[in-house]
């Protein structure tokens, strides 16, 4: 392994003992070693930043910490004593609270009810709630966080930042000593972020131990007291912010430079543009998007989860309303709903193929034909013989492993399902293919087949736009890539410039 060993945490100065310590934690899931001998110390009055790419193991590690997962090996110590955190309830009793990106609030209950859900102060009659005491305590908690909120307001009327503060108040009311913040600034404005930082500093001064997960490197240096970097389920570094810089952190997250050995025979001379997007803005939040895909090209659309990549695909496809700019397919401006865009030769292979790309309870044949009924049959009549022939051809061409054209799609493996989604657009005669996370949930062998398929599409003169969170995949497969951040494109990388580090630097807000 080219892995360098974990770098030791700074020097001999030995401070207070850790409040929580994860020691040599491993967790295996079918097909993947999610955590491999990971250790983590969380100290009172410190912010411990956890860094890593998507899938590096951050979430799994936190789930072990608060009790959602049990580790296969390794132990958890609280105040030096080994504990078994068998459920989130046990974790909460130990004072471990997690603020997720998806809030755990009840929208039509007021703030006070949400803060004390399940622990309401008892009123004089059995089953009743002492509202006066509950609101007074809720207000005290919120004020201690510097929030001046009406505790009787229904929670759904609050903004994201305020709901986050209610979550934190809820955690504090449960006497949380260890607070995990999972990408807390992802949905906040600049001002709200400032307020959150102030709150984090205040809690740190009060001795709360925090784990802070973020993809924004500047925040790491603003708030962090310690940094742990995970990669592929392993701890690759544990260091202090003063000992490192952003470049080094990106390097650690990416690891050694990836082999570029993937021998894709590139189309030497890309043809005319199949997709041109100019100054595109849409209701889903993206703005000023400029990109181009030519025939014979595979173009990557990279960025972190939530950067706006899927939104770009949906806007091109007409699924979300466009507010400004232009989309041209094969040189001709297009605009409208998906049923108007599809006939122009655009195919979307969505991220969530089970929900959006496939009718799981219909047969392979029906799924293959659905995008091109008119093209296949001409008139309004369904012709079974013709349907069988077309479906059988596609199954052969794509080598879809199915015992029969009548097999229900849900019985097929992920890779074969993905091929059906591609096949249905192939049948529709598409010239532009937009793949959204084409290899998610697919095993390694099937991945290679999907890439071979994509390769064949471009050789036949189609253009491909590929959205992927797997940096290595973009580097391996794409001729060029655009990088997105905060709903906009922040850079274009040529074949020569394309590397995991160059993508990550653009995607993570770090010059």
């Amino acid at each position, binding site marked *: 392994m080219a892995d360098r060993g974990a770098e030791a945490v700074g020097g001999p100065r030995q401070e207070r003992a850790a409040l929580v310590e994860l020691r040599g934690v491993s967790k295996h899931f079918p097909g993947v070693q999610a955590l491999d001998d990971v250790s983590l110390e969380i100290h009172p009055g410190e912010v411990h930043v956890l860094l890593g790419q998507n899938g590096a193991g951050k979430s799994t590690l936190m789930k072990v910490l608060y009790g959602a997962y049990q580790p296969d090996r390794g132990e958890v110590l609280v105040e030096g004593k080994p504990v078994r955190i068998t459920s*989130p*309830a046990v974790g909460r009793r130990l004072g471990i609270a997690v603020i997720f990106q998806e809030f*755990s*609030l*009840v*929208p*039509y*209950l007021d703030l006070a*009810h949400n803060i004390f*859900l*399940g*622990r*309401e102060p008892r*009123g004089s009659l059995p*089953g*009743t*709630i002492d*509202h*006066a005491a509950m*609101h*007074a305590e809720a*207000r005290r908690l919120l004020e201690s966080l510097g929030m*001046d909120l*009406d505790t*009787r307001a229904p929670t*759904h009327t609050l903004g994201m930042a305020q709901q986050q503060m209610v979550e934190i108040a809820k955690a504090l009311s449960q006497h949380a000593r260890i607070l995990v913040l999972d990408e807390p600034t992802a949905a906040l404005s600049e001002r709200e972020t400032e307020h959150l930082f102030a709150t984090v500093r205040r809690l740190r001064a009060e001795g709360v131990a925090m784990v802070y997960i973020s993809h924004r490197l500047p925040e790491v240096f603003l708030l962090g007291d310690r940094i742990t970097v995970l990669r592929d389920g392993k701890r690759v570094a544990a260091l202090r912010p003063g000992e490192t810089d952003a470049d080094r952190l990106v390097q650690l997250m990416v690891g050694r430079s990836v082999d570029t050995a993937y021998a894709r025979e590139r189309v030497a001379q890309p043809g005319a543009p199949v997709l041109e997007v100019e100054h595109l803005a849409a209701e889903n939040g993206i703005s000023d998007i400029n990109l181009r895909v030519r025939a014979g090209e595979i173009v990557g659309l990279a960025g972190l989860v939530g950067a706006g990549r899927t939104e770009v695909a949906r806007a091109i496809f007409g699924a979300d309303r466009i507010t400004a700019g232009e989309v041209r397919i094969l040189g001709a401006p297009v605009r409208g709903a998906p049923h108007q865009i599809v006939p122009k030769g655009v195919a979307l292979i969505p991220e969530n193929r089970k929900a959006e790309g496939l009718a799981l309870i219909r047969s392979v044949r029906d799924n293959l034909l659905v995008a091109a009924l008119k093209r296949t049959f001409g008139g309004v009549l369904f012709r079974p013989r013709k349907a069988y022939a077309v479906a059988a051809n596609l199954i052969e061409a794509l080598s879809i492993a199915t015992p029969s054209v009548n097999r229900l799609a849900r019985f097929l493996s992920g890779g074969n399902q993905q091929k059906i989604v591609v096949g249905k657009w192939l049948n529709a005669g598409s010239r532009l293919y937009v793949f959204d996370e084409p290899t998610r949930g697919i095993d390694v062998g099937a991945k290679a087949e999907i890439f071979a398929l994509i390769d064949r599409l471009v050789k036949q003169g189609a253009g491909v736009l590929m959205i992927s969170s797997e940096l290595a995949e973009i580097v391996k497969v794409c001729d060029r890539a655009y990088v997105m951040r905060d709903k906009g494109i922040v850079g274009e990388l040529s074949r020569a410039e394309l590397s995991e580090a160059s993508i990550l630097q653009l995607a993570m807000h770090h010059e």
Partner: protein
Amino acid sequence: MSDAHAAPMSLGTRLARAPGVFYILVLLVIVFGVTEPSFLGAANLGNIGLQSAILLMLALPMTLIIMTEGLDLSMGAVLSLCGIVLALGLLKGYELPVALAAALAVGLAFGVANGALVAWLDLPPFVVTLGTMGVAQGLALVVSDAQSVVGFGDAVSRLYGTHVFGVPFPVLVAVAAYALMHFLLYHTRFGAYVFALGGNRESLVLAGARANVYLVAVYALGGAMVGLAALLLTGRMNAGHPTAAIGMEFDAIAAVIVGGTSFERGNGWLFGTLLGVLAVGVLKNGLNLLAVQSALQVAAIGLLVIVALLVDGLREKR
């Protein structure tokens, strides 16, 4: 800043926030009042109150059930069955409290069954209550031999005709039911958890509350209210009829939706349901006075639901 006992919303705010049904109700009263002079007479208004009482008994717990993202289609059929049980009990010579207790027990049993199937077996409420609707309707027909049950004296109808301080007994029962529901929903843990069951069940479970027990309790409460409503239904007809309450779940669901309660995220409002029940009651009563046939009245209620949703949708967009 607001103090611990913050003043309730001002009347103006309440009006501005009122669901479309409030304006629809006012409009209906004006239209019927103008076209049919007898509509606004004391006798007819009293009639509306009487007719709405039973519907309110169903719509109140239906509100809570819908707030949990559930549904109870069995209420009409179970009400018919409870009415038959009550009438048969009296016919066999049991005292009214005993017969009523039997009706309540039957209603409660169906409620618990609905809740248990939904909560513990995780079956969809629509399917579960469609099934129990069939069971209850079938039982009502079998037990009564598909005949009306009559000739059991006038104990129920006398009670039904009683006035307390000039208030008719059914209206009194409905008011008491409303007060009870209001207390449960807004002043108890149970009520807070009803909001949470629909709004974020996961967080309720994580908070350590026994979410499923509360979910069963919501349906059980519905069953008990249906059993109680059988007293009013039987008193009004002075008979037990196996199909007396067919389709009443439709009116109840309509009233809840018209009242601004949503099928999603635990968004419900009890006072809105009261308005919804009155809107349905006024609409039926007014159409009766105008001699519109009952089949068309069903269509009118359907339209009422759609109009109310449209009005709320438009107001929300603004």
